[in-house]
């Protein structure tokens, strides 16, 4: 699994790289700030990203949001911020994991595996829906005589479906 790491502190970045490599991951890119993270996510096509929150130029949560908007991938935050507001912001940005610094080596690989598995599950479900589920589907109901009936399938507020003929 190819991992992008974003961390402005060199020592922590080196430490993270070593941990990931020890656990069989490939570190495909190292970013030192949020902007670099967004660019490297685009150019190196990682399978997952591990992002610090407080970084120069662009913080990790905003970077996560932009990365996710361009190409969904599992993102795990790694930060010293434990306050509810920061966690909530990260959750809203779509991250799949959130590890606190000082982090324990034992938490890194499991967080990435779980994030990757759940993310691919979400992508698979999305693919089945298509991009966005239309509220209304117009179809021609085929008939044996070759005649086609225009039918409209609409979803009500409560989620139930109703089927109506558009015109007699």
């Amino acid at each position, binding site marked *: 699994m190819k991992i992008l790491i974003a961390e402005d502190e060199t020592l922590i970045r080196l430490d993270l790289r070593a941990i990931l490599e020890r*656990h*069989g991951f490939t570190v495909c890119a190292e970013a030192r700030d949020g902007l670099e993270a967004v660019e490297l996510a685009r150019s190196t096509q990682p399978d997952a990203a591990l992002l610090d929150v407080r970084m120069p130029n662009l913080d990790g949560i905003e970077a996560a949001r932009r990365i996710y908007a361009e190409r969904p991938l599992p993102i795990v935050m790694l930060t010293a911020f*434990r306050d509810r507001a920061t*966690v*909530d912001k*990260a*959750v*809203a940005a*779509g*991250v*799949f*994991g*959130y*590890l*606190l610094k000082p982090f*324990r080596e*034992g*938490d890194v*690989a*499991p*967080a990435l*595996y*779980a994030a*990757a*598995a*759940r993310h691919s*599950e*979400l992508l698979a*479900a*999305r693919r*089945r*829906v298509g991009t966005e*589920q239309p509220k209304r*589907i117009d*179809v021609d*109901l*085929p*008939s*044996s*005589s070759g*005649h086609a*009936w225009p*039918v409209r*399938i609409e*979803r009500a507020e409560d*989620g*139930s*479906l*109703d*089927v*109506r*003929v558009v015109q*007699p």
Partner: protein
Amino acid sequence: MRVLIAEDETLIRLDLKGMLESAGLEVCAEARDGVEAVELADSAEPDLAVLDVKMPRLDGIEAARRILDGRPMPIVIVSAFTEKSLVRRAAEAGVYGYLAKPFREEDLLPAIATARARFDQLSAVREQVDSLAEALAARKAIERAKGLLMQNQGLTEQDAFARLRRASQTSGRPMRVIAEAIIQTLGA
């Protein structure tokens, strides 16, 4: 949020319960092994589960798999063991988080928050998948009911459809419901 916890060691279980309650979460059930966890996941109706791995009778990962088969919910694993084989089994079983023991309260809460949010997101997408499937099923049922009406009542296609439509309008029920009733009556 109602949380099920499963942990065979009493002290750790109490500790875990304390952490969750001090964060404002309700511990609705406590299991001491995997079998109990599966039972309580069903009967206590938790919103989320935190499971230990090494437990008597049934381990936490197999318990997670069975819980997800029955009543899907976000699950976070806590374990002193973080070998790759265990972690991968847990990921494949469907867990959202996996924390090494001993953990701190501040490790657990963000794991729960991300698990809950991503689970809700997946559930919403899955509901859409279901409603699309429902739309297709509706189409099929109407087509079949129309065919049955034509065959059994000697109606033209146009009349068969008109009758379905009228039944739907006068009863205030979706055409799929009407179509299914016709299939049940005439299709047997």
